[in-house]
């Protein structure tokens, strides 16, 4: 590898990452701008954040988003983990079928999925609100949990399970005392992932929100449609910080678990 090629590589990658992060950084930067226009920088202020905390509608939307995200992550963790463990025991053919079916919600474009759920839930006369939001969000969160837990399950030393079986442990006992503790960190990381995905969803939530249950991203979207204000910047920045906190926590747990691994 000659030096010129190496320099070009560094240059190209740097240019790419500048382009990738400049839009994000400018949103953050201008949330602190005194002027309400992006035309010039008028000085540092926290005013827009203050306004945000006094906004009742945003607080309400935030509350709903958090409630939905927490319920979604618990539900997805249970279903996703159960599916991954069940998939260990079924026939090869069935496992393949489960793998395929799990990808289905991720393959249908979100608008089409949202519309179909809207039509389905209205036909069932389900009230639109928390219930529909949690059901629909868990639909596309479960596959992620499933995949992450499965990755971990593949790492398990099967001789341990065989030994337990030989010593007379029932299947349920093996699952409870060996498998679940081993995959617990993955389940936790995956639930945090589900939490973050649910908190960020716009498209499906647009159709699943009831009149009194607008989620935060749906509200942010309607704010953005009206126009650019630093208040939106401030809100986006806070959401970013919150998400990074959640994801960072997940990574930390994962790292710790991997370090503890002795076998």
């Amino acid at each position, binding site marked *: *590898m000659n030096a010129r*090629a190496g320099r070009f*590589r560094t240059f*190209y*990658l740097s240019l*790419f*990452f500048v382009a*990738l992060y*400049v*839009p*994000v950084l*400018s*949103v953050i930067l201008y949330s602190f701008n005194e002027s309400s*226009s*992006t*035309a*010039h920088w008028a000085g540092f202020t926290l005013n827009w954040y203050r306004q945000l905390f006094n906004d009742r509608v945003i607080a309400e939307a935030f509350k709903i988003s958090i409630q939905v995200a927490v319920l979604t992550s618990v539900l997805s963790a249970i279903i996703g983990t*159960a599916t991954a463990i*069940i*998939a260990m*025991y*079924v*026939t090869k053919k*069935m496992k393949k*079928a*489960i793998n395929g*079916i*799990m*990808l*289905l*919600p991720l*393959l*249908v*474009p*979100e*608008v*089409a*999925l949202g*519309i*179909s*759920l809207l*039509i389905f839930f209205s036909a069932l006369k389900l009230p639109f609100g928390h219930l529909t939001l949690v*059901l*629909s969000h868990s*639909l596309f969160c479960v596959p992620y949990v499933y995949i992450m837990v499965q990755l971990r399950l593949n790492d398990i030393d099967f001789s341990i399970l065989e030994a337990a079986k030989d010593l007379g442990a029932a299947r349920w006992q093996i699952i409870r005392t060996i498998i679940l503790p081993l995959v617990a960190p993955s389940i936790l990381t995956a639930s945090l992932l589900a939490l973050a995905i649910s908190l*960020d969803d*716009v498209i499906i939530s*647009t*159709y699943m929100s009831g009149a009194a249950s607008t989620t935060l*991203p749906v509200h*942010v*979207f309607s704010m*953005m*449609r009206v126009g*650019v204000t630093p208040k939106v*910047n401030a809100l*986006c920045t806070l*959401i*970013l910080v919150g*998400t990074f906190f959640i994801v960072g926590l997940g990574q930390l747990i994962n790292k710790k678990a991997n370090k503890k691994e002795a076998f």
Partner: protein
Amino acid sequence: MKKLKQNAPAIPILIWISLLVGMPLMFVVVLSFLSRDSLGNIVFRFTLENYKRIFDPVYLRVFLNSFILAVLTGLITLLIGYPVAYFTTKLQPKKRSFVIMLIILPFWISSLLRTYGWIILLGKTGLINSLLMQLNIVKEPLNMMYRFGTTLVGMAYMLIPFMIIAVYNSVDKLDKSLVEASYDLGASRWKTFLNITLPLTIPGIAGGFTLVFIPSLGMFFVSDLLGGGRTIFLGNLINTLVTRGRNRPLAAAFSVGMIVLVLLVLFIYNRVAKDKGEGLF
């Protein structure tokens, strides 16, 4: 019989998915064949009217717009993303994992924020315009918002990590001895890339293309915020039909059309990937 017993625990999962994905999709198909009365309420009367309307030139144009947007998004992300993925594989392990983290990180940044960032940059009083005016390069602010190109930029920006990851995995898996053999036989760097690396990473390219193509059909908020609804895309049309037009049967017909388009892409992808003996799905 033993197999049946072995597979029994999977039944609740299959029911859960079919209830939440299969049934709704069936409802969409059924609804797309139903008509509306003068008040906009759904009437249980079979009609092909909705599908006939899809083939109306006005609506066909929407399909075409979406298709062009999706294909161009795929091409742009490929052109920009391939070198990123390729160069990343050449980095030392420590640097490499840092760069990969930088590529994945945007997934954790709200997609609304990332779209909004472009409004801040490209708007009439946006950062780029004020910079250009201050440097006296332009006198009048440039009109960069609400164009087809704006939507394209936003969409490519949103989806490029998918392309990079797909290509990266493919380049990383590549049998390095083939590349070395090519060098040993005296082929230049370019020639090796064109004759060895590129053909061998086609499954990764196809995978990335698929991962970019599918979401770009439906992300209506990008074209809404950046395109300002000037060019109408499938996602926007379906969204408007449901939220404002209250014409659910027509929206259902368009959703079916969108899903057919996705199936077509997946079919092509499977063909390409199977030929090369690997697959993403």
